[in-house]
């Protein structure tokens, strides 16, 4: 599955207001779902965060969960204008957040495959110091596409 194809302009916010971890997660969820379903997703994501932060270090976090509220894999991306506390593994604040919600019924385990792929891409972004580089949605999607291609060639 091509990650760039799962990204849409409406779900990439490169000037997200900084705030509490919970508020930032809620904002990103609401770009995918509204109302009761959105709150259900937020509750599950926050429970997941209690198990251990999804802040993977070097300024990137990947909150994720499965939820009944979606019927296909949904991704939303946000970059905060100032880094926020996310209790990341390296204890450093986070500014780039990939939020992933997958449907509960996922026979091919696409969710975990995609999650693994996003972690790989995120590590490339930090390695190449690209967190703050894209300034538009288009540039962001192109960056993801390029990294995916490079990772594909290495295999």
């Amino acid at each position, binding site marked *: 599955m091509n990650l760039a194809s799962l990204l849409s302009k409406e779900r990439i916010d490169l000037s997200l207001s900084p705030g509490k971890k919970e508020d930032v997660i809620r904002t990103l969820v609401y770009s995918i779902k509204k109302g009761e379903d959105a709150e259900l997703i937020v509750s599950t994501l926050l429970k997941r965060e209690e198990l251990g932060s999804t802040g993977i270090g070097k300024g990137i976090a990947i909150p994720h969960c499965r939820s009944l509220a979606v019927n296909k894999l949904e991704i939303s991306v946000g970059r905060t204008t100032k880094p926020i506390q996310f209790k990341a593994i390296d204890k450093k604040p986070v500014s780039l957040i990939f939020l992933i919600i997958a449907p509960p*019924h996922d026979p091919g385990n696409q969710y975990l495959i995609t999650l693994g792929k996003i972690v790989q891409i995120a590590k490339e972004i930090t390695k190449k110091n690209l967190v703050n580089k894209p300034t538009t949605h288009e540039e962001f999607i192109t960056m993801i596409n390029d990294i995916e291609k490079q990772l594909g060639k290495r295999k």
Partner: protein
Amino acid sequence: MLDVIAMHLKLLFDLDNLISDMDEPKYKEIGFKVDDEEHHALIRTRNDLLKKLPDDIAYVYERLKQRYRQAVAPVDNGFCFGCFQKLPTELLTRSKELTTCPNCGRILYFPEQ
């Protein structure tokens, strides 16, 4: 009241999926750290949530979970996404009620459109 039960049921189901994902070897390979104590706390939260459900619903949920791993199935395009059988039209109009699939017995969930 039904709304509260449905909300507890949905959250319980999502938490059960979260718990089972944490136990997946593939998930551990990705490299996310999971705190063991918090994992146990999550299981306690899930058990507390189960106790908040009426006994008959809690019993059905647990029985379905044992049988299928996932007790709840979303409805998409008129199909039960647990057994992929077309649901009777009459049942589709009951989206606000707690209902089960007449074929597999899973509790049906109607996502907001």
